[in-house]
């Protein structure tokens, strides 16, 4: 058991190392560099390009070094001191820039996952028990639309409705008075009141697909022999459905968190861009376009850390839930 845990942790470390190398490499793959982009931008806005300043920045950010040395300049302080380096674009350390945004990304992601489960489990259960009923068709149809509509379109439609019906532009995660405040209970509460719109938008696709998966899973489980056995023992229908098929269907749900999490993080990125939320999404997009290597790589890495951790936790939960898996891994 301990052996398995250790192997698992080691594996996670390797994955994250690979992510760091890969993202660093990919970001630098496009021709040009941040310095060139910066110079072009200055030129475009009609400012005089100060060659000396460019040279200074180049040396300061290590952009004159070969790529692998740049990588080590970034990763070594990161691993040893937890120092994420400096953003070229912003001219300040990366961590304070992304700290709150990462927290907000995580909050939205977790809230979305909770939303998805809370909404889809009862609906799937209802649909599976009342297969081919009007309600089942209704939810199936709704789910299909939710699945087929791109996240950003849902976000747009939401905003249009808000603007047309209520005359307000939704967006942001805080009321203006809390925007630059330090964290407090009141500020956190303010955040919670702003969550529903992004969470619903981010969670729609996930909810739709989970309802589909879970409904099919439950219908499958209803056909299993052990359900018949349970019925032949004289158990109450409601009791046995909860005790057996639903319990069985929970395993794929839990292991589904692993695949859901990357989806959610992606979804929240694009929704944030449309809704203008202060999460990592918009910043990452800008950093990628500007080739702000340290900022972009750090964000990609941290997002991967979040997902890999989530997958790990869901795996542990699954092991706790399913004796077969426990048995397999113990040996």
């Amino acid at each position, binding site marked *: 058991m301990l052996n398995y845990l250790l192997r698992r942790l080691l594996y996670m470390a390797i994955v994250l190392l690979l992510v760091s190398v890969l993202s660093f490499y990919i970001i630098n793959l496009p021709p040009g560099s941040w310095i060139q982009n910066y110079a072009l931008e200055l030129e475009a806005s009609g400012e005089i390009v100060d060659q000396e300043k460019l040279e200074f920045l180049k040396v300061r950010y290590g952009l004159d070094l070969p790529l692998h040395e740049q990588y080590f300049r970034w990763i070594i302080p990161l691993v040893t001191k937890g120092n994420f380096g400096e953003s070229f674009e912003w001219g300040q350390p990366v961590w304070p820039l992304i700290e709150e945004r990462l927290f907000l990304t995580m909050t939205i992601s977790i809230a979305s996952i909770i939303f998805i489960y809370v909404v889809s489990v009862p609906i799937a259960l209802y649909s599976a028990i009342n297969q081919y009923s009007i309600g089942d068709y209704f939810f199936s149809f709704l789910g299909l639309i939710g699945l087929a509509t791109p996240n950003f379109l849902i976000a747009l439609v939401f905003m249009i409705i808000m603007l047309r019906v209520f005359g307000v532009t939704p967006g942001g995660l805080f009321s203006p008075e809390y925007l630059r405040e330090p964290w407090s209970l009141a500020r956190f509460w303010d955040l919670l009141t702003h969550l529903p719109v992004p969470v619903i938008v981010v969670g729609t696709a996930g909810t739709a697909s989970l309802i589909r998966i879970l409904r099919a899973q439950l219908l499958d489980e209803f056909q*299993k*022999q*052990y359900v*018949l*056995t*349970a*019925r*032949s*023992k*004289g*158990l*109450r*229908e409601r009791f046995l459905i909860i*005790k*057996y098929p639903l*319990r*069985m269907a929970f*395993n794929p749900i839990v292991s589904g968190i692993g695949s859901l999490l990357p989806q959610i993080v992606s979804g929240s990125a694009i929704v944030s861009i449309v809704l203008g939320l202060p999460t990592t999404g918009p910043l990452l997009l800008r950093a990628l376009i500007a080739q702000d290597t340290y900022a972009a790589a750090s964000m990609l890495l941290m997002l991967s850390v979040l997902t890999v951790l989530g997958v790990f936790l869901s795996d542990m939960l699954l092991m706790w*839930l*399913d*004796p*077969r898996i426990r*048995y397999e891994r113990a040996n």
Partner: protein
Amino acid sequence: MDDVLLDVQDLKTYLPLEEGLLKAVDGISFTIRRGETIGLVGESGCGKSMAVRSIMRLAPNFANISGRVIYHPQEGDPVDIVQLDAHGERIRDIRGGEIAMIFQEPMTSFSPLHTIGNQITEAIRVHRTQDRKQAHKIAIDLLGRVGMSNPSQRMSEHPHQLSGGMRQRAMIAMALSCEPSLLIADEPTTALDVTVQAQVLQLMRDLQDEFGMSILYITHDLGVIARMVQHVAVMYLGKIVEFTDVDSLFYQAKHPYTSALIKSIPKIGKKSRRRLESIQGAVPVPINRPPGCGFFPRCSVAIPGLCDRVDPPLVQVAPRHAAACYVYPEVAEAANVSELEGQGDGTR
């Protein structure tokens, strides 16, 4: 007829499918007496499993069940199971409590996520006692009686930790946990090795002596029938085509299907070099079945113009021996086909 336990009369289970009406069980009748063992034999797909599921009211929700299944409990009035609400209280009392069932696949019959103990005590707590500790004790005792070593440890194990034979023993323990008066065994040994099969069969006979319950034994294995049962009903395409005691079945089979079935058993002996006989053709799909005897297309003694028009009824053709085939004049007489022959409109 005083100690009848279960009286099945003209039981029909029709399944309306997209492809048409599936007459899975098409009017079967038989009775089971207390302490008796009845066998129900037939090829796969003949409707034997659907028949017993209908008796337990475990057929799919959309199935149309008609006929009568009169159950005579030890105490109280007889009930017609067909008339009960399939999710009601009375049928739930009967299931597990008075009629218990064991299934073919010991692997899938248990939930893999719950312990053996949990799944056995659950039945006990529904029917016998609310007390958790007492239920636990009963379960341990039962596991011991079905021959499982170290029963108290087995209680906390999961199904995948047991072998196939052990799982089926646990299944039997679970079925017997509430001392039912009828045990329905749906091919309980088909998935097991031959040696384990013999052990499980022996166990069931011993337990029957001990508990005194009746057994309805469903199988396609004539060898098992010979060892286990007193009376046999042979099913073909949703109907019982022959009903007799086990000796007559093997030595004086009346229905051509039964004879063909018995001929297809491999024999050890002088003539063992002979090619194994098989019944020509396959069982037709019982959806939108044409009128007439279901065995007609495969039968060697079929009478064209009669067998393919009117379904032969099950009629007594010898003492305590019923068959549904027109080669016996009694059957033709009972069906009144002598008048019909001229008309040929094929009504049933």
